[in-house]
């Protein structure tokens, strides 16, 4: 069983920058991890392009690799919840809570 990998994004996640997050997650997956946590707590703008990357990542990870997202606040967790992604992806307000959830 591989490591737990935390992928941290910061700043803007729009159609221009989301591909970078996609690469970050692909790199993490290549490490054969036990779990991937994407930390959005330093993201100040999350567009639907970024949300699509999260759903795709969850689809690629499951069921072998646990997948969780850390987000809080009006720019990230609010729209994620609005569009129903909180029911699809494990969403936690802090990294600690996400770590606990993936069982570390």
């Amino acid at each position, binding site marked *: 069983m591989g490591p737990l990998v935390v992928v941290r994004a910061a700043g803007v996640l*729009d159609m*221009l920058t989301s591909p970078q997050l996609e690469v970050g997650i692909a790199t993490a997956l290549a490490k054969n991890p036990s779990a991937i946590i994407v930390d959005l707590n330093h993201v100040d*703008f999350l567009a*639907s392009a970024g*949300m699509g990357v999260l759903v795709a990542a969850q689809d690629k990870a499951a069921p072998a690799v646990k997948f969780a997202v850390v987000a*809080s606040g*009006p720019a990230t967790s609010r729209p994620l919840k*609005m569009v129903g992604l909180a029911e699809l992806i494990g969403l936690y307000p802090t990294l600690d809570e996400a770590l606990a959830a993936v069982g570390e």
Partner: protein
Amino acid sequence: MTSPFERDPGTWFVCHDRPADAWTAALVREDFARWLRRRVSADEAKLCDVVLAVNEALANAAEYAYLGTAGGTCDLEAVYDVAAGALTVSVRDQGRWCEPDPNHHQRHRGRGIPLMRKLADALVIDTSALGTSVCMRFSHVNAPMAGIC
């Protein structure tokens, strides 16, 4: 002296004929966000909602309106009616509507319009041979929100 018909830069935001591409969309979004934060007193959550909704409309014009063509432009206009506390934003392009393929599974896409519809109080999407216009109305932007975060 300003005539009553002159646009007050405080309550209007107009940005015409910008190239419909991802870079310009990001720049126009940032300009609009600055205007919004300066001119509209609203909760942080409401400001975030508006900027996200506008971004999705700009992103769609950049991504789809001119698919298969040499490209084109798009316009953003916003009007803030201070008395009513209502903000109306429209994003227009002169491109062609591009139908998402219903035969294709799009689990990773297709959240832009649903987001706009959730974020705005009214959404009007107008498609014709002249292009697409997306108009969003945010009512009572200055009212305190019960806020989910």
